[in-house]
C-alpha cells in the first residue's frame, strides 16, 4: 500500500514537472477583479476573456472582489506569480503603477485608466459605440416615446453612455424622452429592480441598465416592457423582455496583448479599442424587432466600422441648449459631465 502511494506521488510530481515545463515558454497571466466572477456583468465579462486565454494554453489565475482601497497588496501578490497582470477597475490605477515600479520585469495592464509607465499600460473599449447602436433599436421599439435608464455610479464613463444612448434613440425617434435614475452603486439588485419599476411607472417602456445585475431585465419582463442588457448577454434572465445587450468581448484584446508581450513587441500605451476590433458589440435581437429597424442600425454600424462617423464627432446639442459643432477628442469624451438634449433628467451635480 505504502509503495503504491509513493509511486502515485512520484507519478504526480513527474506530471507536474512536465506540465510546468510545457508552460515555461508561455507567459502566465494574472487578473485582479473588483466584483465576483458570478456577477453576470462587468467582472463576468472579463473572466470570459481570461477563460479564452486558458483555452489558448496560457496559465492564468485571478482574485475576485478586491476592494479598490486594498488592491495594492493583491496586485503585488499577483506580480510575484505572473508575467502579465491585468487590473480591471478604475480605482486600481495608482496601486498598479506603484507595484509596476517595484516589479520591472512584469507587464501591467490597467483597464479604464489613463496613467502609464515603462512596464504599465492602459486599455479600454469604446462601449459608447455599442450603446449608441443598441439605443437605435430601443428608440424604435418604444411606443410611449420614453426610455428609462437605470444609472449606476455618476462618473463620466456612464454619462458618456447615457448621452450615446440618447443620441442613438433619436435616430429612430427624434422626439424620444430619456429619463435617468441613479442607484449610486455598481451593484444592488433590489435597488436596480426598484429603479426600473419607478421608471416604468413614469411611462418608460424600454429600460436600459448600466448596473451589473439582470434585475432590470427581470422587472421589465414582469411589467411586459422591453429592456437592454449591460456588459453580458442577459437574455437568459427574461428573453421576452431582452431586446439586445451591449456587451464586452475582452478575449480579443487579452489574446492580442498577451501575444504582444510573449513575442516582445508590447509597448506601453493607452489602447481604446472600438467596435471594429470586436471588443464591444451587440447580442442577438429580440424576435419582435422589425427588420427595417435592424437595417437602420446596421447602416449606422457600417458608418462607425468604416470610420466615416463616430457618435460624438459630428456635433450635437447639450441639454442646456448650447451647440457642440466640433468633434470631441478622446480626452473630452473621457471627462464628459453634461447631458445632451433629449434627456428629461438633470445631470448629476448640475
Amino acid at each position, binding site marked *: 500500500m505504502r509503495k503504491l502511494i509513493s509511486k502515485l506521488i512520484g507519478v504526480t510530481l513527474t506530471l507536474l514537472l512536465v506540465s510546468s515545463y510545457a508552460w515555461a515558454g508561455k507567459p502566465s497571466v494574472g487578473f485582479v477583479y473588483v466584483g465576483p466572477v458570478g456577477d*453576470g456583468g462587468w467582472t463576468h465579462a472579463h473572466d470570459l476573456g481570461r477563460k479564452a486565454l486558458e483555452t489558448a494554453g496560457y496559465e492564468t489565475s485571478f482574485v475576485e472582489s478586491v476592494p479598490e482601497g486594498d488592491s495594492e497588496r493583491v496586485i503585488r501578490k499577483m506580480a510575484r506569480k505572473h508575467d502579465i497582470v491585468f487590473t480591471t477597475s478604475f480605482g486600481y490605477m495608482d496601486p498598479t503603477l506603484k507595484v509596476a515600479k517595484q516589479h520591472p520585469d512584469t507587464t501591467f495592464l490597467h483597464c479604464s485608466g489613463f496613467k502609464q509607465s515603462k512596464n504599465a499600460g492602459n486599455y479600454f473599449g469604446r462601449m459608447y459605440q455599442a450603446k449608441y447602436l443598441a439605443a437605435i433599436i430601443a428608440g424604435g421599439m418604444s411606443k410611449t416615446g420614453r426610455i428609462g435608464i437605470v444609472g449606476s455610479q455618476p462618473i463620466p464613463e456612464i454619462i458618456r453612455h447615457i448621452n450615446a444612448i440618447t443620441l442613438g434613440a433619436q435616430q429612430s425617434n427624434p422626439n424620444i424622452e430619456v429619463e435617468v435614475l441613479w442607484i*449610486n452603486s455598481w451593484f*444592488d439588485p*433590489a435597488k436596480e429592480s*426598484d429603479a426600473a419599476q419607478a421608471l416604468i411607472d413614469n411611462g418608460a417602456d424600454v429600460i436600459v441598465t448600466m448596473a451589473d445585475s*439582470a434585475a432590470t431585465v427581470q422587472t421589465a419582463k414582469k411589467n411586459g416592457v422591453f429592456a437592454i442588457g449591460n456588459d453580458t448577454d442577459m437574455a*437568459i*434572465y427574461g428573453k421576452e423582455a431582452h431586446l439586445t445587450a451591449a456587451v464586452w468581448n475582452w478575449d480579443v484584446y487579452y489574446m492580442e496583448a498577451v501575444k504582444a508581450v510573449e513575442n516582445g513587441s508590447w509597448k506601453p500605451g493607452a489602447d481604446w479599442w472600438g467596435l471594429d476590433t470586436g471588443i464591444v458589440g451587440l447580442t442577438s435581437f429580440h424576435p419582435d424587432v422589425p427588420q427595417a429597424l435592424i437595417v437602420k442600425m446596421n447602416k449606422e454600424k457600417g458608418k462607425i466600422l468604416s470610420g466615416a462617423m463616430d457618435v460624438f464627432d459630428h456635433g450635437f446639442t447639450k441639454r442646456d441648449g448650447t451647440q457642440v459643432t466640433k468633434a470631441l477628442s478622446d480626452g473630452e469624451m473621457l471627462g464628459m459631465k453634461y447631458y445632451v438634449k433629449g434627456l428629461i*433628467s438633470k445631470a448629476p451635480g448640475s
Partner: protein
Amino acid sequence: MDFFIQILIAAVAMGTPLLFATLGGVISERAGVINLGMEGLMLVGALVAFVVMLNSGNYFYAIAAAAIASGIVSMIHAFVCLMLRASQIASGLALTFFGTGLSGLFGDKLMGETVEPLARIPIPGLHSIPILGSVLFNQDALVYFSYLCVALTWWLLFRSRLGLNIRSVGEAPEVCDSLGISVLSYRFFAVVGGGMLIGVGGAYFPLALTPFWVDGITAGRGWIAVALVIFAFWDPLKALGGAYLFGLALALELRLQVLGIDISPYFLKMLPYVLTILVLTLVTIRNNRRGIQVMPAALGKVFFRGEKH
C-alpha cells in the same frame, strides 16, 4: 397621491427583509449574543431559498429550507461563542465572510436561472382601507408572515416564560445560573432561532424582490439590519417601525430623483446610520438620567459558569 402610495409600497418591500433580519437579531441579542454575521446568514438563506424554489416550485419549502439552512449555519456561531467562549464579534464577522463565500461557491452554477416571484394577495376587506390598505394589505405572503413574526416575537420575549428566561440570560446570566436556568441552552436557542429568521429575510430577495440568484444579492442589507437592532432598542415593535423607516430611506433615494428634488444620494445612503447614532445618543442620555438600562446588560459578554466577575 398615487406616487406617494408607490413610495410607501416600495418602502415596505425594501423594509421586509430588514424586518425579518432585525427580529432575528433582537432575539439573539436579548439573550446576550451579538450577531454580526447577519449579511452572511441572509446570503445563505437567499441561496437556499432560490435553489429549493427552483427545484420544487414550492414557496413554503423554499422559505422553510432557508430558515433551516441559516439555523444550521448559526449553530457555528453558537458553538464558537457559547461552547468555545470565543469573541462574539470575531465569530460574527467570520460568519459574514463564511456565508458570503459559501453562497458564492454554491451559487456559481445558477447564473441565468429564474423563478416566479411571490404574487400579491390583497386581504379581503382590509386592502380597501384608503392608503394603508394598498400599502400594508396588498402585499405578498412573506410580508404578511413578517407581521405575524413581529407579534410572535413580541409575545415570545415579553409574555412567555421562555422569553422571560431568554431576556434573563441576556441581563444576568450568573443569577439565572444560580436559579438552575441553563444559560447556554437558552442562548443557543436564541442564536439559532434568530438565525432562522435572518435566513427568511435573505429568502425575501430571490423569492420576491429579484427572482434570480446573483452573487451578493443582499448588497449589504445585513449590515443595515445590524444597525437596526440597536436603533429598535431590542424591541420587536420598534423594529417594525425602524425597518420601514430604513426601507423608506432606500426607496426615497430613487423617488426624490423622479421628483427632481436635489438631495445628495450620499446623504440618503448614510441616513440610516446617522439616525441610528442620533437615536442611540439621545435615548441613552435620557435613560442614563432616569437610570434605565435598555441594552441587555450581558450583551457580548462571555459567560463562564460558576465564576464571579
